């Protein structure tokens, strides 16, 4: 339980720090880069390195490549929907998450499993 709480705190701090950086930068398209900052990855990998070691962390990073490809597909689709149809950002961002899950797990199934 303590481990989970520590993960929660460190993850929150990293994500907030990168979000703050993104908010401080202009133009918006450059600030948008920080929407894909490796904040959760850094928080998780630092903790994993402490508790499980390098090999375990490297295995997580390998799967993260698939997760990042899925993020690319998801963000491209969401961006296209917003540009093309001017839909409400929240609906597009949440509604398209199914695409992240299907791409990430699809890649895991064919490449990593």
């Amino acid at each position, binding site marked *: 339980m303590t*481990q*989970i*709480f520590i*993960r929660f705190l460190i*993850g*929150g*701090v990293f*994500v*907030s720090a990168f*979000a*703050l950086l993104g908010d*401080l930068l*202009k133009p*918006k398209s*450059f*600030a948008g*880069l*920080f*929407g*894909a*900052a*490796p*904040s*959760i*990855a*850094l928080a*998780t*990998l*630092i903790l*994993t390195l402490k508790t499980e070691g*390098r090999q*375990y*962390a*490297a*295995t*997580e990073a*390998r*799967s*993260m*490549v*698939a*997760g990042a490809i899925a*993020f*690319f597909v*998801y*963000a*491209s689709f969401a*961006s296209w929907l*917003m540009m093309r149809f*001017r*839909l*409400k*950002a*929240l609906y597009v*961002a949440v509604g398209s*998450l199914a695409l*992240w899950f299907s791409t*990430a*797990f699809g890649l*895991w199934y064919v490449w990593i499993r």
Partner: protein
Amino acid sequence: MQVKISASASTAWHEYAIRFLFGGVITAIAGIIARQFGPGIGGLFLAFPAIFPASVTLVEKHEKEKKEKAGFPAGSRGRKAAAVEAAGTVLGTIGLMAFALSVWRLLPSHPAWLVLAVSTLAWLVLSALLWVVRKRI
């Protein structure tokens, strides 16, 4: 073509609290999933778009409020701003792939702190380069 640092007066503390909460929850969930199903599945969540929905929603809200405060009808201005932010995130995800590849390949044979620092730099440099190239096209 310039990148500027501006005061973040438009972001309220509760909006950072929401991001903190999202980031914390996803990091905790990634840890639980890795423990339950192994690092192969858990690692996928290291690139979960945790703050993307919150970020684009806040950008849309702020742009809409800014326009209305100036006495103009907001129209689709907020949604356009959110789409521009999302287009930037697409470029950031390419940098994120480079980060993951770098950690995966370098971590077993190099000091961990160095690998994380170099990989974070790789994310930033590649993302920024792609942004510059895209701006010029």
